């Protein structure tokens, strides 16, 4: 007599893709991913160093998420307008930008809030990207608002046709905001499903508050199930699995024009931000160390090679930091500029 009760069996979070011995991606791509991961890490370390030496007021960024963010960037269809992917990003997305081909010097500029910062002209924090030519909408500090906007660009893309999709990313703690639920609802309206790849990077922290103490969903991706949405939880610390899983999910969204919810388990390697010290956390998986070990095991990269990659970027980014030092600060007379779009925009 009692109505059926439903329970999803709780599945422990964590790596769900098992490693086979042979790497399922070709060497060139693997090494490219490795280099981009290292380049990202070096950039973030430089940003932290700048903060610590007084060349910036605040740092926040993505060290620990490289294994996820880099494949994401490589898989994005980059360009301007609805034929290309629209990107509503979290503030930890440097790896994605670099994988897309962005010049790291611009992050340094934003860190130093120079007038030359192309994202915000020295107005916004580090990691708050904006690049219209690549459909990167402005990263903004309020948590989760990007999830409320993402269905809008996706609707334009659905109408436009083609295979451009909308990608939205955010953290685990932020899914407690209603905007995450709004995104699920608006993306899955019956008959009006939208091509959105809804991503949550779960590092199991919101500043000092652990996921386990605040949210009962064993897998955050389960939030999509009631909406008849495809969902999965993946190991975001492994660039190979991240690449394959994202590829599959993106292909689905690109062709089916329907939403897909991906939760990626990742690390937070330097704490939340400069406000919490920005020091390396030994207890978390370091995706670069882990990937380098694996590449070495497979004979694809030696310790020396890895070291060389790191040194190369260390040098190049240090040069950039020096170059940025003398760039001008914004003129106080400009505070009203761009309050409204000019007629020529």
């Amino acid at each position, binding site marked *: 007599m009692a109505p059926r009760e439903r329970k999803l069996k709780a599945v422990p979070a964590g790596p769900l893709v098992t490693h086979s011995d042979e790497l399922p991606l070709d060497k060139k791509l693997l090494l490219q991913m490795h280099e981009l991961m290292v380049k990202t890490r070096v950039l973030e370390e430089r940003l932290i160093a700048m903060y610590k030496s007084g060349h910036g007021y605040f740092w926040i960024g993505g060290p620990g998420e490289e294994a996820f963010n880099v494949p994401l960037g490589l898989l994005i269809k980059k360009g301007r307008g609805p034929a290309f992917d629209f990107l509503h990003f979290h503030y930890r997305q440097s790896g994605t930008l670099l994988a897309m081909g962005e010049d790291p010097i611009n992050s340094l500029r934003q860190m130093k809030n120079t007038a030359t910062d192309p994202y915000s002209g020295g107005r916004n924090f580090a990691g708050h990207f904006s690049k*219209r030519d690549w459909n990167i909408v402005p990263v903004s500090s309020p948590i989760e608002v990007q999830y*409320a906007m993402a269905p809008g660009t996706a*609707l*334009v893309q659905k109408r436009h046709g083609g295979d451009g999709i909308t990608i939205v990313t955010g953290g685990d703690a932020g899914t407690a905001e209603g905007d995450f639920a709004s995104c699920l609802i608006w993306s899955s309206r019956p008959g009006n499903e939208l091509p959105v790849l809804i991503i949550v990077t779960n590092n199991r922290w919101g500043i000092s508050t652990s996921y386990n103490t605040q949210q009962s969903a064993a897998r955050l991706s389960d939030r999509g199930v009631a909406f008849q949405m495809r969902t999965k939880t993946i190991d975001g610390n492994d660039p190979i699995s991240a690449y394959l899983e994202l590829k599959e999910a993106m292909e689905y969204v690109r062709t089916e024009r329907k939403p897909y919810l991906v939760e990626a388990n990742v690390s937070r390697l330097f704490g939340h931000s400069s406000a919490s010290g920005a020091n390396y956390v030994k207890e978390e998986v370091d995706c670069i160390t882990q990937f380098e070990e694996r590449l070495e095991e497979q004979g694809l990269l030696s310790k020396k090679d890895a070291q060389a990659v790191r040194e190369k970027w260390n040098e190049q980014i240090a040069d950039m930091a020096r170059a940025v030092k003398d760039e001008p600060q914004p003129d106080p007379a400009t505070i009203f*500029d761009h309050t409204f779009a000019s007629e020529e925009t």
Partner: protein
Amino acid sequence: MANMAQAIRMALHYAEENLGVTDIFGEDVGAPLGGVFTAIQGLKTAWNTPLDERGIIGMAMGLAMGGARPVAEIQFCDYIYNTIDLLKLAGNTCWASIGQWNLPMVVMTPVGSGIRGSLYHSHSFDATATHIPGWKIVMPSNPLDAYGLMISACREKNPVMYLKPKALLRIKGEAPIPGEPGDDKQLSKMIDAPLGDRSKWRAQWPDLTAYAVPIGKARIARPGGQLTVVSYGRTLPLCVKAAETTGLDAEVIDLRSLWPYDWECIKESVKKTGRVLYVNEDTEVTNFGEHLVRRTVDELFYELMAPPRLLAGKFVPGIGLADALEMASVPQLGDISEAMQKLAAEAP
């Protein structure tokens, strides 16, 4: 003549056909209802949304970012207050991205008292809206302005907040919308959805033309030399009427645009009269009329013959349902007449 709801509908139709408007959406905005005040009936790009105001504003922002041209409705402005952060974000997106991203989007929402709407269908939004940088804000007081302001709003590159005074939506205008047929019955037959089954109904739109009221331009609703009265929305016609019935030689200015607003027009008038009354119905503490008072004393202090006055809504937590409560909470004709008389008579 068309009423304001019809005028807005016609402007939206014009904007769909000629200004690239792609989406008119909100709760109960699509078929069959066409909006709780009928202002969206028969429009081809209108669609219904989930009951989620944050989703509606977010959708508008996303559409605008994607290159569409959305007109979003919040069913009553009483329900917009969980979206203020998104409105602020929409207002700072161009600025934060140093001009990379602009958001051509219109948000329209019915405001104010006058329908015995009780606590939650009587709110005003002008104080809150004018405190949000990066938005243009308009509020018509008659059908022709409603039409012309909507045309301008749909041409804007920036977010526009279009406030619909709900007490005036069913009031017919005194000037025709360019293109509307002379006969009201005929107009109604053409563009008002029928009662009952509407599934086969299509609007027959008159041949409309592009009449635009520029944003930022006030209108002198009644010229005068003795005192200046500045208002907008529901209270504007009451100010005109108060001028007529008191017999005062009051110049009544219909602000129409709250941001940017036509300071030149106000200034010129106050310089002439030396007395100014600002009238609106939002609650009176931290009220937009107080900004206008401040600007007045800032720039015109030494030309004033009496203190600039504000008549606004009482600072109460809500407008009570009972007739007497509503009347006592927001300015009515009698209150306005009295305030004008007092101001005209004021001597140190």
